[in-house]
């Protein structure tokens, strides 16, 4: 049984299709592995005894772990929030529907930062997820549960959402692959909204080929999401082995900021690997990218403050017990139901949208967004890809950054610009770094960004680089 869990999803699916592996036995083996969750990574699991399940007609491919932000009919969906404790949606999200249609059983719903707001998973109302590489550290966020189950051997692959880095950063901190597709590649229908102009679903997987396959299942235009466009062609499994003739740009503005020495070392080594594979490395300039965090922390909270107005204790979710009138009920419900970070962002967003401040904050941030997208367009006129470290740091300790929200936000420094520009970006594990103060070595992610809808090219290059890097470290391995 252990050997079957070693297969990548692509390998397992091929074995099932060839009749060499029973989808039922393979699925049962994974359900058993998931039941051993000691990372607080699952909020709900199939077969947990509550009698609820997400029905798949005929299991045909590897089972998937799904971030608890995707609505699943009749099965608890909390978005990591107390305000949705016990909520069972009336319908299933398109992303999950596509997985079911492809024959993928759903293993469970994974823990996350409340409403996807966070970079450490410490903002979940259901407690933090632990990083399988070192349980005293965070897995990243907000898709921390989805990253931890894949890295920790509790699921073969998973889906998450990325608004400003919420797939790529946890993938980096957990040593797996995380892909944020182009905005519009995958339907957002039934995906609980945080910041609608930025939210995008994507895969968290063991390797690049699994990410390509997952994207090909998920992508497509959906009549239920008018902003979905899909990809012109479903991605093929990548098999490129070199990077000959490809031009990689390193943005100087992003490279100079505070990057941990271990992360910088792995980044530099990866650039050397790219050159060895025939790729060309050039420094470039994205003059507005460094303002990404400022623009993002206006735009995302502004959209969130509007999206989260729906949680009012009337139609679903928590209603606080009060003796007072309707307004008191609203206030008590939201005070009780939302955590600190969500309240902080609702206040920031409401402030940024308020009359008198709108132009200075929201209007200005939208213009910065235009400039950031233009910077990327200019770079892609000369280069094929823009590369950065995924995160300025390796996984940090639980509680280390919770006292300083701004320090937490700066974790997204390298991932936010791509989200604002709507372009695809992937994080692949590139090496290990020694944490300050000792302890097991921890994974470092390498981010590659490509022009909108150039997913195939991105996956091909990421695959070639992945093969050359040969990252095969696992949590609890040598030195762990």
């Amino acid at each position: 049984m252990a050997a079957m869990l070693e297969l990548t999803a692509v390998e397992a699916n091929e074995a099932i299709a060839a009749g060499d592996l029973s989808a039922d036995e393979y699925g049962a083996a994974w359900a058993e592995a998931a039941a051993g969750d000691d990372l607080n990574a699952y909020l709900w699991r199939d077969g947990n005894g509550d009698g609820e399940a997400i029905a798949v007609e005929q299991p045909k491919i590897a089972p998937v772990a799904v971030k608890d932000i995707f609505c699943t009919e009749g099965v608890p969906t909390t978005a990591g929030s107390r305000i949705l404790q016990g909520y069972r949606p009336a319908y299933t999200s398109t992303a999950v529907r596509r997985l079911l249609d492809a024959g993928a059983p759903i293993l469970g719903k994974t823990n996350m930062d409340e409403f996807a707001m966070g970079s450490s998973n410490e903002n979940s109302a259901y407690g933090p997820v632990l990083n399988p590489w070192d349980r005293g550290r965070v897995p990243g966020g907000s898709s921390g549960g989805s990253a931890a189950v894949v890295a920790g051997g509790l699921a073969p692959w998973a889906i998450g959402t990325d608004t400003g880095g919420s797939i790529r950063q946890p993938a980096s901190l957990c040593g797996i692959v995380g892909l944020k597709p182009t905005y519009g590649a995958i339907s957002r229908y039934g995906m609980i909204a945080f910041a609608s102009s930025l939210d995008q679903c994507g895969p968290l997987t063991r390797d690049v080929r699994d990410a390509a396959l997952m994207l090909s299942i998920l992508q497509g235009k959906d009549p239920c999401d008018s902003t979905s466009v899909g990809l012109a062609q479903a991605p093929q499994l990548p098999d490129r082995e070199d990077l000959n003739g490809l031009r990689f740009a390193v943005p100087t503005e992003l490279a100079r900021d505070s990057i941990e020495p271990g992360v910088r070392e792995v980044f530099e080594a990866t650039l050397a690997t790219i050159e060895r594979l025939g790729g060309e490395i050039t420094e470039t300039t994205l003059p507005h990218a460094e303002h990404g965090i400022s623009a993002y922390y206006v735009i995302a909270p502004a959209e969130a403050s509007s999206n989260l107005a729906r949680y009012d204790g009337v139609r679903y979710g928590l209603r606080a017990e009060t003796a007072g009138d309707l307004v008191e009920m609203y206030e008590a419900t939201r005070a009780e139901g939302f955590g600190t970070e969500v309240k902080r962002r609702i206040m920031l967003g409401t402030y940024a949208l308020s009359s008198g401040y709108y132009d200075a904050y929201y209007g200005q941030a939208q213009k910065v967004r235009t400039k950031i997208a233009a910077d990327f367009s200019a770079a892609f006129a000369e280069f094929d890809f823009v590369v950065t470290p995924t995160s300025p740091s390796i996984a940090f300790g639980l509680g280390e950054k919770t006292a300083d929200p701004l320090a937490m936000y700066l974790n997204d420094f390298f991932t936010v610009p791509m989200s604002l520009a709507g372009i695809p970006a992937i994080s692949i594990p590139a090496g290990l770094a020694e944490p300050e103060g000792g302890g097991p070595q921890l994974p470092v992610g390498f981010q590659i960004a490509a022009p909108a809808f150039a997913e195939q090219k991105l996956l091909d290059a990421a695959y070639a680089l992945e093969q050359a890097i040969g990252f095969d470290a696992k949590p609890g391995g040598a030195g762990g």
Partner: protein
Amino acid sequence: MAGELSGILEHVDRIAKLDLEGVEPTSHVVELENVLRADKPHQSLTPDVALAAAPDPVDGAFRVPSPQAEG
């Protein structure tokens, strides 16, 4: 929390100093034209299903406390 919000706003204020006169704001990255779905009747959620998750459903409706404080 007031102190934290001030710190965040101070960081955000950096963009206030940029000269972006005449730059078009971006509200959405994908160029799309609005479309309307075909005007055909279809089965939507039944009242029972729509009310199933409500904290206090009564007679096919959502019951809420009175909007006017008593007394």
